[in-house]
């Protein structure tokens, strides 16, 4: 017996809480992956990352409306098309932003931070003016609704499972792209030694632009997945930006494995503590612990050993 619960009930509650943590983990990982690519690999702080994510969410929303009205027979598969569209739209905007703004500021990382914050304000107000201040949600296809009962207490929502599967897929895709493809090799070469990479014939400017676009595109897919578990508003992106930056920094920038591990730690810690205390205190304690650890170990959990 623990408190008012039997041991069986208590372990079930812990399991449910852990599952809620896993969904949070999925969202964190997807947001953080894009950010880790941009920040970790390029050293650019993109404060507008949340807004790229929301762009993906809006693209998904409009695709769902389009399918509802014009192609109701294909409604079941709209989500896959929406994700691809979200990736393309966010990625294209990201490449445009890199061309117009970021490439002039590579030597001034603090200024990039301010400029992208300005961009995020403009995008937010743009969403509000064009799409309205109201939060919107998408209609899910039949097969994503409901939940699976594992035991008589533990129930697992299907859309949560779907998001997790998606996260797994995207993580694998990013890993493959960065560590197994020729393009990833170029990216890593540019990070390690920009001048030498240029000297052996890699178009470093193009690699920068593609990397930034890829990071923003992943943010768009994250936003697309986000619509399945929550509603979207113009300012929803800002809610996650601090947590995501902490995830990336905590994991040790430039380390994909570190990003995933730290997203897991932070999300599990937060959702487990939420059971024992109020949500806001759980968040305060989690973030404080992360900041505290970062003060003791500023290079993060999994740091690359670089001689400076």
């Amino acid at each position: 017996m623990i408190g008012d619960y039997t041991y069986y009930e208590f372990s079930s509650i812990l399991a449910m809480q852990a599952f809620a943590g896993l969904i949070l983990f999925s969202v964190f990982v997807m947001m953080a992956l894009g950010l880790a690519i941009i920040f970790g690999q390029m050293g650019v702080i993109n404060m507008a990352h949340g807004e790229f994510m929301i762009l993906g969410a809006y693209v998904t929303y409009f695709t769902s409306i389009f399918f509802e009205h014009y192609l109701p027979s294909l409604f079941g598969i709209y989500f896959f098309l929406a994700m691809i569209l979200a990736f393309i739209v966010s990625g294209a905007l990201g490449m445009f932003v890199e061309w117009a703004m970021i490439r002039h500021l590579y030597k001034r990382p603090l200024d990039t931070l301010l400029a992208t914050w300005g961009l995020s304000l403009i995008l937010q107000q743009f969403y509000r003016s064009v799409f309205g201040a109201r939060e919107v949600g998408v209609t899910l296809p039949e097969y994503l609704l409901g939940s699976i009962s594992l035991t008589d207490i533990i129930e697992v929502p299907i859309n949560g499972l779907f998001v997790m599967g998606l996260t797994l897929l995207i993580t694998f895709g990013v890993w493959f792209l960065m560590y197994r493809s020729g393009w990833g090799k170029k990216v890593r070469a540019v990070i390690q030694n920009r001048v030498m990479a240029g000297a052996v014939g890699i178009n470093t400017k193009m690699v920068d632009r593609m990397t930034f676009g890829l990071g923003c595109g992943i943010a768009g897919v994250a936003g697309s997945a986000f619509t399945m578990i929550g509603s979207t508003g113009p300012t929803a992106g800002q809610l996650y930006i601090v947590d995501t930056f902490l995830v990336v920094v905590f994991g040790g920038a430039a380390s994909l494995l570190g990003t995933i591990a730290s997203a897991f730690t932070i999300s599990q810690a937060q959702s487990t503590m939420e059971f024992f205390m109020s949500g806001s205190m759980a968040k305060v304690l989690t973030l404080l612990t992360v900041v505290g650890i970062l003060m003791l170990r500023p290079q993060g959990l999994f740091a690359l050993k670089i001689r400076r």
Partner: protein
Amino acid sequence: MNFANPFFTRREWAAFAILAVLLILVFPASVDAFRLNLIGKYLTYAFVALGLVLCWGYGGILSLGQGVFFGLGGYCMAMFLKLEASSPENTAIQSTPGIPDFMDWNQLTSLPWWWEPFHSLPFTLVAVVAVPVIFAFIIAFAMFTRRVGGVYFAIITQAIAAILTILIIGQQGYTGGVNGITDLRTMLGWDIRTDEAKTILYFVNACLLLGCLLIAQLVKITKFGRLMIAIRDKEDRVRFSGYNVAGFKIFIFCFAAALASVGGAMFTLQVGFMSPSFVGIVPSIEMVIFAAVGGRLSLFGAIYGALIVNGAKTAFSESFPELWLFAMGGLFIAVVMAFPNGLAGLVRSHVEPLIGRLFSGLGWGRTAAADATPAE
């Protein structure tokens, strides 16, 4: 060194005189009490911007958490005023008279121990500066002795701003929650809500600001200021020359925090409340833009930057609320991409040569070489 480095150059004396006349004579004479109070509110942000010029422009340390220190200073002041407003006679209708109203609403039956010392004004005045500075010292000590800087420092200060906001909102019974500490009335029996009191507070604020400007200038022109620039531009070389780099950075960060806290306390006095909406991420980063618009290397620019951006914000929000965020976002991008030295840079490159031509022969032509390059 002191001969080569006078306290103010002649141009700076002129700028200081213009600013003083503007704050002490022109504004009070030309606007009504309501607008004067608004200007006073903008000027409280100028304290923060002054600190940021030293810390960010000269030291290269971008803090996205200045709202934390502004807020802590403001909350310390608000706690004193709130306790005075919650005398047992004023709060007789509560179930527990003598404690602030929001505590009563949240079923608290006695004053928390850490509220007790704020019954005393001298303690409060010390706490207004001491609490934020100690907090800043802890952050800066932990980070700078481990040589964390640049974007990492910015992100962590931002996270701290987020944490403090969540904490204040979550602990409603102790802090007043999302509404903040409101309904402040008197300070040692002196009603701060009348127009007359607000005018007096405006003058106190303006004089304090000019005083802080002089102190900041003192920090800037001494050897310490030179070292800050050296650290910004080539930290390792300063370290190898035998200086304790972390110590200098800790000092400048604490100094900026102290300036912000004075601003926060004056804000509470003039506006009459304090809430978490002046602590979090958004206000903190807005404070950076005040310094950036004015010119991140110019102390005078910081004050004008705070006045202009806030004035524009009020004007826009009154007539075209939906355009303000566009304007603000555009300002962030423009100030970074096109005018990294802000208004002060524009004045230096366009206005001063013009004045120099008009008054040639009066010693206007000199320019300070150290200020010419923008910070990182």
